[in-house]
């Protein structure tokens, strides 16, 4: 959208985008590309900065520290219960961004489209993308669109980046984790991964599992407004809850206990996991924030989380027990213990 080839052909107007399918010409920088940007993309995402269609967006930021993240999205199927690739791309980016405690500033959005991709599907994706952007109050400030030959990509891939600024007093990072910290999460686990599996055509399960795909910027803001002792935040995406706990325990050189009976796994999610031999602790989430907070502030933060619409089922699931080699110990419902390790798995490709 902002490259110089595209720019020459852009005239902002109110014409309708009439094409039914994406063709190579929509990405060649010519007239058709101009129509795609002007008559379609700007309709959804237009704003003061993006409308300039310059090679680079210029942003105002008074802070000395910025947070910056990037992500790519190749989920299959592109529409799934609870979301689609567009909503997922914004949620994934914003959730990564706010784990630093930053105030989000802007997002970039780029598409790689496969020749022949139906414009009606593209519009559905643009609409849900716009909805979530409106909810979090952020703009797309720069982007790009490429079209590749049929078979060279699968329908649509999305790349994003996100940028935010950090207040001077905010320092949230795994190395801040301390012995005694409580570990909180804002609800049940494994819903995204199982919703995706469930919507793949090779399975014919009839369940009501919905992806937890959600933007968590307001949740994090609410937490930060009640406590200055939040030590680490991490959204539990690929690899699931177990993998991010493992990474954080290693990074902070602490041992962690988590309690099986405190971790919420919806009945249907558990059912599908048992059927396919999967462990919900290792299944992806797209709207779950894991919080390490000083134990004195744990209850305050928990109450703040519960008041947010994405945190109603928040709970304390464990604690940091001691300095150590980075062991994550699951205390089972039987009271036995087992170590949670990083798992090797390729069973679930293209879940995000």
């Amino acid at each position, binding site marked *: 959208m902002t490259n110089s080839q595209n720019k020459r052909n852009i005239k902002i107007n109110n014409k309708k985008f009439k094409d039914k399918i994406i063709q190579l010409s929509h990405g060649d920088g010519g007239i058709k590309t101009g129509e795609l940007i002007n008559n379609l993309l700007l309709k959804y995402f237009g704003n003061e900065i993006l409308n300039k269609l310059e090679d680079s967006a210029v942003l105002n930021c008074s802070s000395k520290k910025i947070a910056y993240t990037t992500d790519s999205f190749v989920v299959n199927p592109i529409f799934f219960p609870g979301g689609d690739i567009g909503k997922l791309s914004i949620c994934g980016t914003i959730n990564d961004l706010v784990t630093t405690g930053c105030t989000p500033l802007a997002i970039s959005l780029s598409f790689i489209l496969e020749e022949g991709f139906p414009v009606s599907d593209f519009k559905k994706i643009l609409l849900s993308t716009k909805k979530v952007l409106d909810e979090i109050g952020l703009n797309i400030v720069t982007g790009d669109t490429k079209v590749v030959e049929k078979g060279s990509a699968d329908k649509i891939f999305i790349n994003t980046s996100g940028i935010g600024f950090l207040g001077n007093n905010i320092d949230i990072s795994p190395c801040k984790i301390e012995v005694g910290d*409580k570990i909180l999460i804002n609800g049940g686990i494994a819903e995204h991964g199982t919703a995706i599996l469930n919507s793949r055509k*090779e*399975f014919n399960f009839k369940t009501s599992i919905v992806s937890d795909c959600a933007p968590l910027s307001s949740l994090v803001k609410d937490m930060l407004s009640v406590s200055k002792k939040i030590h680490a935040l991490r959204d539990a995406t690929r690899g699931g809850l177990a993998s991010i706990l493992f990474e954080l325990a290693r990074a902070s050189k602490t*041992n962690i*206990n988590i*309690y099986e009976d*405190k971790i919420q796994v919806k009945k249907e999610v558990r059912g599908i996991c048992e059927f*396919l*031999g999967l462990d919900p602790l290792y299944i992806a989430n797209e709207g779950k924030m894991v919080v390490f907070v000083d134990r004195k502030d744990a209850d305050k933060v928990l109450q703040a989380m519960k008041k947010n619409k994405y945190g109603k089922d928040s709970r*304390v699931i*464990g*604690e940091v*027990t*001691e300095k150590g080699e980075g*062991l994550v*110990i699951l*205390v*089972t*419902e*039987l*009271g*036995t*213990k*087992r*170590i949670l*390790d990083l*798992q*090797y798995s390729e*069973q679930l490709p293209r879940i995000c």
Partner: protein
Amino acid sequence: MSSNIKELVESLNNNKPDHKINIMEVCGTHTMAISRYGLRQLIPENINLISGPGCPVCVTPISDIDWIIGIARQYDVSIFTFGDLFRVPGTESSLYNEKSKGKDINICYSPADALDFARNNPGKKVIFIAIGFETTIPLTSVIIKRAYQEKINNFYIYNTHKLVPEALELLLLDKEVEIDAFLCPGHVSAIIGSKPYNFIAEDYHIPCVISGFEPMDILESIATIIRQINKGISEVEIQYRRVVREEGNPAALKSIYEVFDKSDSVWRGLGNIPGSGLKLKKKFLKFDAKTYFTVKRFKSREPAGCECGDVLKGIKKPTECRLFSKICKPENPIGPCMVSSEGSCAAYYKYEKIKVQHLKNLNMTLI
């Protein structure tokens, strides 16, 4: 811990036998459950749970893997397999590697997926890798009958099906293996019932308890075994009553033997076991991939240092293999027991890398 389980654990500890006993769990799902729930931490130390040859992928000999890879390399075929077999190393390659090189290899969850694909793609030759014990054999038999009725001419199975009771007898005859009781498989027994184990209790005086898969099921079954041992008796008992009947599932058994005849079968680690396999009846032989596709001669070699054979017989625990967690890991499996989701090495790697005693000593504060 619920009060039921607490009582059961206490009673197990109060009634423990005065000597060490080895209980072999035959089913891979039991192996996983025991490791996953940390049941070894709850039972008396002199009750030793050992894993048996209960993971179908693990007991599939390497020559079968090589044969399937040979077909994939030599012929233009679409292969359908359950996920567990996908990464099992053959002598030179794995199905996973062959897929990366462009061979048409698909993971499926039911043989019906493979038959559907064959029906919808009449120009392609489709092979389903038929693997598993009595639990999955009825499914294969139904699919074969359907393919026969529908006159589907481009569908084949590579048959590696195996029967459990025959393998148990071989283990009892092996002097290296010391077994005091069997925790018998729940799902297999749902098909075959309890009678096929009677010879074990009667002729070999070994208690057999058919168990469910919940922690409570397994602990109850262990308690039943201990009760028999303390009384000096050996019987076949069904703990998993909610699923298993003495007579099994006659309809499923009938379906199996409409399509297959018993035959000998080679098991990894155990060798050839008479009557432990199945071959397609003559009527259905046209679906047999081994008959239809000839593969160039190849020499299969077990991976150097891999002790899956001893692990499958219960002679060694996974942690006693020299390669375990050093070279052989789930991301680089040397033997099949590290690959399969029911493999005992995978179970130990996932859940029991740390010794029980060390786990007991770890810091415990409760929220």
